[in-house]
């Protein structure tokens, strides 16, 4: 069974227990809209130390081949840890108000 959340299941249709026959289902659940502050990343200033990647509590920093590539706003909660941890000499992340 796969949880697609399109048609709600009755209690008789559910698998026994809280089992979901699929892994990493949290990926379906985009929680980035909780954010009130948005981290803005400046690729020019970034020295790719990956401090932000290792400290982000939401695994929202994307990395490829050992290089920071950006922020996944589908999951970033705007906590600002990345901006604080980013080395002062680099200061590659700015926190700004989330505005429509």
């Amino acid at each position, binding site marked *: 069974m796969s949880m697609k959340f399109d048609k709600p299941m009755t*209690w008789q249709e*559910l698998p026994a*227990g*809280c*089992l*979901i026959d699929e892994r*990493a*289902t949290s990926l379906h659940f985009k929680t980035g809209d909780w954010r009130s502050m948005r981290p803005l990343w400046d690729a020019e200033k970034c020295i790719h130390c990956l401090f932000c990647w290792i400290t982000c509590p939401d695994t929202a920093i994307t990395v490829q081949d050992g290089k920071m590539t950006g922020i996944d706003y589908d999951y970033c909660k705007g906590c600002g840890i990345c901006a604080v941890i980013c080395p002062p000499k680099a200061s590659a992340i700015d926190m700004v108000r989330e505005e429509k």
Partner: protein
Amino acid sequence: MKTIAKTGNEAMAYAMKQINPDVVAAYPITPATEIVQIFSNYVADGEVDTEFVAVESEHSALSACVGASIAGGRVMTSTSSQGLALMHEILYIAAGNRLPIVIALVNRSLSAPINIHCDHSDTMGSREAGWMQLYCANSQEAYDSLIIALKVAEQTAVPAIVSTDAFIISHAMERLEVLEDEEVQRFIGEYKPRFSALDLENPKTFGPLDLQDYFFEHKRAQIDDFSKVLGTYNKVAQEYAELSGRYYPALEEYKTDDADVAIFTAGSTADTAKEVVDGLREQGRKVGLVRMRMWRPLPVEEIKAALGKFKAVAVMDRSDTMADFGGPVFLETRGILYDAKKKPLLTDYVYGLGGRNIDISDILRVYDEIEQVAKQGKIDKLITYLGVRGEE
């Protein structure tokens, strides 16, 4: 079949050895300490293949059991009183995830005041957690019930608590008949878990967040499966009787056929009451006994049928609900009988809290009083605190 002498704790540990679970995680607590202490000797001596996990609390013990069970193991633990209370949160998690874990429990009162002796307040306080509950009258039954409970738990995906009375059963040496190791293994069969977190070919999600959208449906399904436990229990108890010659119904009736009055009780008190029934029967008094063995799920129809026959019944409660309306067994029995066509006059005796002794004269008094109730057709005193100083 071998005949040996064992205490209740030794009997439970011996059954655990013959079950040979994959994982036992436990924290010691009086008077259940011995169960896992003896079992850890079996582990150290290589008599079982069990992974024994020593933890720092009962909360962790049951948490480790949950993890091991999700991994697909056959899992057991043991506890008592405060230990069960500390497991309380995890009891619901095990049951909600449908993990057939079995607890060998020794019934002991809950603090305060601190007390290490028997009453049923620990398990009665966990009635709503979704665990099957069996109350044993002696060591033999504790041994047999642990084996039966494991099989029922695994077939129904409902965890089980099997309990004995602290010190009265746990530490009293009794004659015991045990099966051969192979017989127990054949009876319980190989455990085939419905899923395993270690199955890397088929990854799954365990214990997800479940809000307004599905929580109610999950609970409804759990309640439905729980209601099927009694049917499975009856079948497994029958199979066990064929193997061992010992049959344990969910509800036991003793000399009830033509009885006018009966005591409804559980645990070791039932065996004492049987002695009293035998004596009174010799005097020609029409008294009987109904013993509650399974209290979760509730054997509702069985209780209705058994108690409906009598003019009057005295419920014996070894714990209280603090509802100012007697003990849990009384309250639930009254609820069950409310819409029964035939129902007895029902009174409650709360007794034996904190291990206060209950002897033949106490039970004689209950029979005297309940016969009086039957004779006059009315109840003078609904709830009696039996054997407490200050009460008449």
